[in-house]
């Protein structure tokens, strides 16, 4: 295992950690807005780390551009989807959770 | 145990779950979901076979079969769902 492999493994593990955190938030947070928060933020950072790890394993300009494009597109899509869901929830009258 | 064998067994389990669900579910939509699962499981078994017996390149005829199967499945699912929506106009709801 070279240093690159170790670094890639560490990045992938860190990315997975973010995904776990996001999933935990999805399960445990009290309302749809905070769950969206967990999903879009944590999952995208996790994805970015995993993309970095993958790039280390398959280097090259073409691969790098493709992987970067994948990450950016998912960023856009999840941002738009999060916005739409939150707006629909607001329209239906779901109020943000307040500490009781 | 090769990966193909492992996935083949997984596919067999998927067929079982889809079959049981398609028969034993009360709501139409869930039955349609079950049929989709049944189809996907069958496809996995076919491709597991293709991977098991071939050499460097897996059997392309099986691949073409499954590709066709996926397209036909989505066609059938669409018609089934359209029918289900029409039938639900006076049924008692979508939960099981």
């Amino acid at each position: 295992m070279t240093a690159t492999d170790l670094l890639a493994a560490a990045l992938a593990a860190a990315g997975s950690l973010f995904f776990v955190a996001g999933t935990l938030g999805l399960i445990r947070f009290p309302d749809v807005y905070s769950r969206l928060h967990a999903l879009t933020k944590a999952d995208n950072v996790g994805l970015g780390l995993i993309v970095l790890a993958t790039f280390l394993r398959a280097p090259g300009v073409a691969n790098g551009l493709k992987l970067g494009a994948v990450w950016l597109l998912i960023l856009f899509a999840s941002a738009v989807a999060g916005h739409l869901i939150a707006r629909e929830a607001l329209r239906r009258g779901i109020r943000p959770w307040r500490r009781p | 145990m090769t990966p193909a064998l492992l996935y083949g067994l997984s596919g067999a389990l998927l067929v079982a779950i889809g079959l049981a669900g398609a028969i034993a579910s009360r709501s139409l939509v869930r039955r349609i979901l079950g049929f989709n699962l049944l189809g996907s499981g069958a496809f996995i078994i076919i491709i597991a076979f293709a991977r098991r017996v071939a050499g460097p390149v897996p059997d392309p005829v099986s691949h073409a079969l499954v590709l066709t199967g996926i397209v036909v499945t989505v066609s059938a699912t669409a018609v089934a769902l359209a029918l289900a929506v029409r039938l639900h106009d006076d049924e008692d709801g979508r939960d099981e």
Partner: protein
Amino acid sequence: MNGVGFVDMLLAAAVPALAAAVMLYRDLFRATVVFIVLGLTIALVWVRLDAPDIALAEAAVGAGITGALFMRALGAIPGPPRGAIAVDRVSFPWLAVRGAAVVLAAVAALLLAWAVLTVPSSEPVVTRLVRDAAPESGVGNPVTAVLLNFRGYDTLLEVGVLLLAALGVSTIGADRHAASLGGTRVRGPVILAFAHFMLPGLAVVAAYLLWIGADQPGGAFQGAAVLAGAWLLSAFAGVAADVPARRMPVLLAGGFLLFLLVAAGMIAINGGLLRFAPATAKWWLLLIESGLLISCAAILATLVFRLTDDERPEAGP
């Protein structure tokens, strides 16, 4: 293909687990979400089984289009009134049906597992025939060669089935007076900007998948699914890309008719239905696939749009 890795064990365990979740979740909306996740997991299984063409199709059609169909259907089915207690109809005939279903499923699983474990390791004759004839097919991707050249007749009928499904859904489903590609419009600047940003890229990706399918994983169906997704996005966002109602039948049936014409034309040129000469096969296949790209995209978009009328306001998760 090397030995079983951790990823393989994870995927092989996840697939039945997700399937069980699909069948067991009370709320159909959640079951559908898990179904979409299952579709994407199965796409990963395809990748591990050296089937990248199928992985593309599964992700786009199996998870994407099918998921959209289910979501749309669920939006149109009114749920039970809030607070209603589900009547638990536990009757003997129903328990018997459930028991029989489980037994039948267990028997099926055992038989299939036995088949998987005892499949012979020798190469089927047809695989060797395809491999020997592949250089004459005009394309480098063996799956595309089989789909369009060696088994082109099957693909022709498959497009016919798609067309029939579009007709069926249009007849059963939506209000006949609706616009040619109606659907719930999601108003707002964010999705409009997103659509404006994505649509050119999606069209290029679809065309690229078509073109690259000749020699690498890809093909007309995968491109058509991407194009259908772009179509749906444009309709939902309100981007003015609507097709006049008079022109839709041309788009829907055009691919099939073109395929039929080329197939019949081959009788005149080469003496047999769908018989291609090795030298010119590539261009005929490209012609057929281009028609299929547009038509299948139109059909898939129609399947989603015409599934039902606009959603009733009281429905929802």
